[in-house]
């Protein structure tokens, strides 16, 4: 019987883990520098944490891994975390609400069923959340942090795509659709159907032009939004407030010299967002996204606290990171070969070498010895130590371990 890996899961091999840790390391470093603190929430949450917000679409909730726990006789299910932000919102309400604002980050896995099993159903994310601040600067700080991480990973040519959840909702309301119909269309946008807006039949004719402009043109500056506002602000007053908010943030991005495109029909996976939505893309795929979600914390049961955040997707990023960005930690590794009666001394020497900051291991029969820079023979006869530099092809004798360390430091 051959035991197989579970369908829709993946193993991370050492080389992939090196990429994973590199990304995680750069992400942690930049987050800490911007004053964010790391949190880790449990893999298991109650399902109702995710249903209570009323924001995840039924189609998304139909793909979560939920089950009855060993004490689940009440019929309420638990779930493998399908989202990174909602548990952090719960954490904030549970632990930090008295403190006002909070800057939090996390590296976590999320679980969503994918029917073909070709894509992984367990995805990894690096996320940052800025809770308790509602200014455009807060949104731009998150975009800046995301770009610092990506630049730190040696990635360039990252595209920034902007949308605005409040604007989409205002547009749907402005089209004169019934509340049920507005929800249906919004859900379809969230589920990735970007064309749904083009199929909508507005009940208010003056809204048709605004709709067509918004979905067909892709703006590249705040000027685009200002033109839209001038064009449609009178006819569809609902659009004014979200457009003003959108313009504030985009103007700041302009002054900071960011390139971006505005495409309001893209909203896949941004269920609980209320304001700006930003997506980060390479030529091939989406590697991150985020935005403003002011309604989430009250929906999870907290006070009326604004928040925004983003996540970088580790799975595509691991493919995008170039091997040059990976260090070669093995280059200075040291192999200690102790004669059979010298094994005790061998262990003591490896310990000394570790304390001195070297990567050292004892020779084990059956282990591949390639890839070590140094070999140190520990002998029962004189000389007690023989150090081989495999790069410089040189052998040196030593009397004490201190001599060995001196030789290595040379």
């Amino acid at each position, binding site marked *: 019987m051959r035991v197989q890996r579970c369908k829709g899961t993946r193993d991370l091999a050492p080389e992939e883990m090196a990429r994973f840790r590199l990304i995680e390391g750069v992400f942690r470093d930049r987050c800490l520098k911007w004053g964010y603190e790391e949190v880790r929430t449990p893999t298991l949450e109650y399902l109702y944490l995710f249903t209570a917000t009323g924001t995840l679409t039924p189609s998304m*909730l139909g793909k979560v891994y939920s089950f009855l726990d060993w004490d689940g006789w009440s*019929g309420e299910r638990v779930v493998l975390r399908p989202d990174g932000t909602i548990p952090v919102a719960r954490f904030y309400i549970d632990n930090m609400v008295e403190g006002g604002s909070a800057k939090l980050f996390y590296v976590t896995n999320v679980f969503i069923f994918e029917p073909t099993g070709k894509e992984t159903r367990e995805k990894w994310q690096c996320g940052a959340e800025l809770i308790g601040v509602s200014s455009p600067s807060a949104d731009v700080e998150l975009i800046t942090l995301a770009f610092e991480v990506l630049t730190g990973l040696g990635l360039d040519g990252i595209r920034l795509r902007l949308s605005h959840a409040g604007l989409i909702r205002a547009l749907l309301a402005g089209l004169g659709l019934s509340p049920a119909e507005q929800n249906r269309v919004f859900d379809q946008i969230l589920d990735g159907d970007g064309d749904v807006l083009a199929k909508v039949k507005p009940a208010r004719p003056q809204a048709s032009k605004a709709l067509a402009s918004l979905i067909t043109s892709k703006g590249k500056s705040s000027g685009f939004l200002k033109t839209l506002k001038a064009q449609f602000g009178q006819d569809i007053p609902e659009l004014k407030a979200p457009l003003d908010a959108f313009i504030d943030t985009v103007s700041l991005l302009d002054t900071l010299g960011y390139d971006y495109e505005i495409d309001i029909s893209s909203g896949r996976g941004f269920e609980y967002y209320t304001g700006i939505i930003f997506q980060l893309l390479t030529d091939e795929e989406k590697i991150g996204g985020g935005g403003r979600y002011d309604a989430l914390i009250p929906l999870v049961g907290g006070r009326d606290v604004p928040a925004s955040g983003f996540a970088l997707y580790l799975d595509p990023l691991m493919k995008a990171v170039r091997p040059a960005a990976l260090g070669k930690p093995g280059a200075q590794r040291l192999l200690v070969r102790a004669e059979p009666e010298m094994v005790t001394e061998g262990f003591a020497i490896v310990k000394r070498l570790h304390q001195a900051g070297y990567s050292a291991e004892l020779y084990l029969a059956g282990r591949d010895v390639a890839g070590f820079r140094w070999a140190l023979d520990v002998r029962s006869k004189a000389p007690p130590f023989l150090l081989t530099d495999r790069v410089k092809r040189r052998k040196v004798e030593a009397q004490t371990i201190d001599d060995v360390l001196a030789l290595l430091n040379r």
Partner: protein
Amino acid sequence: MKGGEVDKELKIALPKGRLLTETADFLKRAGWGLSDYHEGTRLYRIKSRRFPHLLAKMFSEKDIPIQVAVGNYDLGICGLDWVKELLARYPSSALVKVQNLGCGEDALHMVVSRSLGVTTPEELTARAEVIRIASEYPNLAESFALNLRLRRFSVFPLWGGAEVYPPESADLALVPGRGDKFYEAGLVPISQVLSFSAFLIANKTSWEIKDLGEAVASICEQSVAGEQYRPSLDMTPAPEMAGQWPSTKAGAVRLALPDGHQQLPTVSLLDKAGIQIDDYPSPTGNRRPRVNLPGVVAKVIRPQDMPLQVANGNFDLAITGRDWLKEHLYQFPSSPVTELLDLKFGWVRIVAVVSNDLSVDGSDGLRQLCAERSLPLRVASEYVNIADKYARDNRLGMYRIIPTWGASEAFLPEDADLLIENTQTGRTIARHNLRIIDTLFESTACLISNVNSLASPGAGRIESIVETLRRALKES
């Protein structure tokens, strides 16, 4: 069997129960010439005169879509309700809906108690408290809740009798049936979840690669696609139900009485204890009989469903079987349900059963069988958690549990390798060419309660009922 023979062989799963008579008539008109497909038959394997390569087997209706989807059967006939129930949880199931047979029409409604004053589903979405939904269709109930975006809900999966749960034991029930039935039970339909009839379904792979033409054609020729059932939602208030259902705080005792074949021994025991119950067993199917004991109210539900209901505090006392208590406790080890009395009647053994074709003895033999084969051992049972524990405790290696809803003997040997089943005499098992290889435990009827009920202000009354029953047992 040679490859060509396998290709010709056609397997169909036919329903027992509700759809049996109509399906039998239908296939008779289609000229199938089936042997032994009628009410009361004890044979689960059926032959056709018209299609000599056809093998038909009878299953509980709920099992049929699963059996067809996993590829054990090429074709199946069952209500579309059970197809939708499977697809609600497993949308990529390999099923093709072939033909509406135009019979067996019914509808599934989400109902609430009239006393709740709710008439539309939307009125429920604003609620922050947990909304409890009871149903034989737990997957459809869950997707209803998700689509409605209920903020917090729990689903009680039931074996039956969902209509008696609202409003006390559940807020909503997803039930089959029509207006009159709801009216009599004091229920109001708030949403029609599904209108359905009997369907011919096919396994997707069989449909793509096998020649099912003649059999399918014979069915399609006969079927007159029936008018879809349109329910008339009757919102007029019916008289209030007799007997208020109290909470434990009120100090009254809420008793769950079994339906089905445990009713007569239950009545006999209660009689001896001097407890009279009007209209139980009820010829009209009344599930709220009156107990002639002050401060005691009763509902009639399935014994299988009782431990979960007692755990949830919906009942203080229930008469069920120890098999169903264990089934519950194996799933929820820290459940507050506890056995108070062994009622001695309804004795069965819970046994492990294999086909006579399999030369295996005892659990050691099973373990060896598992180690030798490359395919997972298929374990069929109504007792999913007992079967799972048995497989775990006996280290059966790679195994799969196949949940069944009755008539489990039919699964061996083609559709399962091991069966965990209850038996009194072992005769049914022997008649199906099966053999008992292990006894897991013995089960009798028992009285169960919730440790929290026993610590509540109403505990005194519970204890006096238990004491009365204990004395009646001693005298008998």
